């Protein structure tokens, strides 16, 4: 058993590392998006700051920090200020329970590549992301602007609705693996079917994966479900009245949420960090991280790809899709899965 001091120290170190990696990832996801979408639209994207515009995120950060922090009149100030913070806090919190690889031992101390390993990790992620809606909703309401309010209303309704389909799509995986612990879920996916197909949940739970993908896009307010910030109708939706760092916080929250979603998808459906291991021990230790990062990258790329490809839904279409298509499908998938598992055991 570790002493409390070591435990706190290790946790702090892991937190700092995770936050740093996450924020960097967020920044470069933004860069990636601009680059990819630019190329898709037959333009260059950022090129000026650094090679291939690689320093662009840094420049953006500096710009956000030094811009004037406008607080419009007639806003409800306490919540106006608290809303972006809530958004970013909840977005960053869920990273705490996401494992990125097996345990490693450094200096005789065995520790897992995860800030904290709880046996209801998945539930915590769900809970925290479900709280994330407050940031958006409160921002929309406290801005005292009709665009923001509409954006906030849309966001809260949309996120609550799609959360159900999202949760139900995950239950199929949970039934297969029999645990809420993300680590155990990943471990359950090691090995192969028939010797060559990886034992990933995406194969038996293809429908669930599809539902999860759709619901996750809606949860993160991404195209084609970016109704809360639909710039053609609501100016910029819930963050119309925000500027400078507060605006940046919403931005960060959105991308952090994307990464969280990508992580969960990788862990639950794509086998987590499992992949071919080879080479010297150090490489063997780092390869799982690479495989995991690769999956996240792929997932983010799909995000961006879809953004560059699909038009936005109408709001009633969005709700109908969620309630009348995804939810029944998720329930059907759940019933079939439960039935099969019950037959097999």
């Amino acid at each position, binding site marked *: 058993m570790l002493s409390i001091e070591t435990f706190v120290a290790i946790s702090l170190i892991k937190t700092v590392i995770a936050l740093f990696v996450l924020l960097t990832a967020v920044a470069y996801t933004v860069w990636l998006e601009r680059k990819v979408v630019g190329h898709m639209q037959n333009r260059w994207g950022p090129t000026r700051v650094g090679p291939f515009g690689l320093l662009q995120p840094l420049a953006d950060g500096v710009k956000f920090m030094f811009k004037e922090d406008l607080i419009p009149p007639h806003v409800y100030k306490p*919540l106006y200020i608290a809303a972006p913070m809530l958004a970013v806090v909840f977005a960053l919190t869920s990273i705490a329970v996401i494992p990125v690889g097996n345990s490693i031992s450094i200096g005789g101390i065995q520790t897992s590549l995860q800030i904290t390993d709880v046996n*209801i990790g998945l*539930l915590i992620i*769900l809970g925290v992301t*479900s*709280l994330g809606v407050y940031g958006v909703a*409160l921002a929309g*309401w406290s801005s005292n602007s009709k665009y923001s309010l509409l954006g906030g209303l849309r966001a*809260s309704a949309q996120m609550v609705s799609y959360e159900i389909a999202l949760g139900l799509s995950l239950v199929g995986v949970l039934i297969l693996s029999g645990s809420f612990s993300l680590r155990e879920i990943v471990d359950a996916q090691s090995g192969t079917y028939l010797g060559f197909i990886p034992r990933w949940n995406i194969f038996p739970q293809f429908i669930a994966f599809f539902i999860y993908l759709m619901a996750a896009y809606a949860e993160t307010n991404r195209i084609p479900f970016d109704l809360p910030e639909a710039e053609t109708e609501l100016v910029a939706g819930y963050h119309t009245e925000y500027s400078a760092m507060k605006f940046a916080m919403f931005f960060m929250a959105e991308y952090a949420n994307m990464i969280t979603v990508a992580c969960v998808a990788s862990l639950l459906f794509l086998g987590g960090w499992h992949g071919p291991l080879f080479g010297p021990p150090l490489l063997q230790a780092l390869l799982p991280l690479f495989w995991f990062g690769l999956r996240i990258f792929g997932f983010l790329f799909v995000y961006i790809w879809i953004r560059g490809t699909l038009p936005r839904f109408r709001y009633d279409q969005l709700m109908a899709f969620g309630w009348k298509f995804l939810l029944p499908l998720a329930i059907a998938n759940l019933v079939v899965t439960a039935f099969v598992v019950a037959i097999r055991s």
Partner: protein
Amino acid sequence: MLHLILFLAFGVVCVAGAVNLLVQRHPINSALSLVVVMGSLAAEYLLLGAEFVAAVQVIVYAGAVMVLFVFVIMLLNAGEEERTKGSRVAMIFGIPGMLVGSLLITWVLLEHSGTQSVAVGALPGPPKTLGWLLFHDYLLPFEVTSVLVLIAIIGAVVLAAPPESARRKD
């Protein structure tokens, strides 16, 4: 010791949130106070070992029910509460009644129970066991509540749907 500190910390947050709910005049502040109360209650559940209950508390209460409240407050654009003097009875009988009842209950609790202490995670409630209980021992109540929820869904749709006259205009 740590247990007590954590309990007290979250307990204080809890009570503060509850009192804030009463004090605040704007419903959205009250709603957020309630979210805080629920969050800290989830922490108290964790202290008692009821991890699944804690998670469900956050997901269902804080993440869904309270979002609904906030949504309705936003939808109706509810303003600050007016301090109308609508009910003398509530003040003359209600508040003293509430106080007397609370004091009596507190006294009974202090006198007659709870001398024993519970450790951190005194009763772990793993999802598997809870699920077993829910789907075996409490299957009938479970099904009944499912019917209740179905009725509630229908009722909510019927109640909140715009009145017939408004719909016909469209």
